[in-house]
């Protein structure tokens, strides 16, 4: 197995996630795209862990998974709050702080 193949898979998933964050209007869909990005980072971390023969990459991948779980919890709570106040979760409508 080559190093490049895992890094390229991570890059492809990262770019698809970035497209999703830019293109989607629904807040839940944006959170899903962020999950794609975090998973691509994890693939890179584990590939480098094997490449360097070190276990640190595994540790950091576990930390990233924990942070992602916390992020989804808070993010979905915010989405529920926005929905309760406005009856919509379209991110285009949240323009009060545009300046």
């Amino acid at each position, binding site marked *: *197995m*080559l*190093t*490049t*193949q*895992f890094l*390229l*898979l991570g*890059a492809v*998933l*990262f*770019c*698809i*996630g*970035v*497209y*999703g964050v*830019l*293109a989607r*209007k629904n807040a*839940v*869909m944006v*959170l*899903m*795209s962020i*999950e*794609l990005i975090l*998973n691509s980072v*994890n*693939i890179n971390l*584990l590939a480098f*862990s*094997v490449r360097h*023969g070190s*276990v*640190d*990459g*595994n*540790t950091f*991948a*576990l*930390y990233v*998974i924990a*942070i*992602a*779980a*916390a*992020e*989804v*919890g*808070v993010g*979905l*709570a*915010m*989405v*529920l709050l926005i*929905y309760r106040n406005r009856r919509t*979760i379209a*991110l*285009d409508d949240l323009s009060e702080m545009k300046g």
Partner: protein
Amino acid sequence: MIATDLLVAQNVGFGIISLLMIIGAVRVVTVSNVVHAALWLVIVLSGAAAQYLLLSAEFVAITQVLVYVGAVMVLFLFGTMLTRARIGAESDLNNKNWFLGIPVALLMLGVMSYVIVDGFGSERLIENSGDMQPIPIQVISDDIFGPYLLPFWALSFVLLVAVIGAIVLARKD
């Protein structure tokens, strides 16, 4: 050399799984039904777990299945069903400027692929892929509770604050 290298079972598995993952990821960002997008995301996350197994990271793969496919997906489906009365297809999931995302993503992909191929080329991940041993969980726990204890503490606080914050945000009063 390259031809025999391509036929290694690990490479075949990698190809099939990554193809599934990329198709699933593209469907997640293009499909017009939130529940379907969540189910496509399950395929991507399970594929990522399989890739972790290929990278001999058993513990991370199991954690991925437990946390992502188990907990996070349930949260997503709850979020979808609590915020949307409709379950069917929706036409207004995209921004009106959604097409601008395509050149941005393609440009990023081009730059990243160039840098990765330029930097690593055909370097092998490990000299003999048959030598890859699964990492014992004991080694990982020694790493977490040894040199990386301080980030672990910080992470516990982050999780605690996230739980309290989620309760405070979602509470009705």
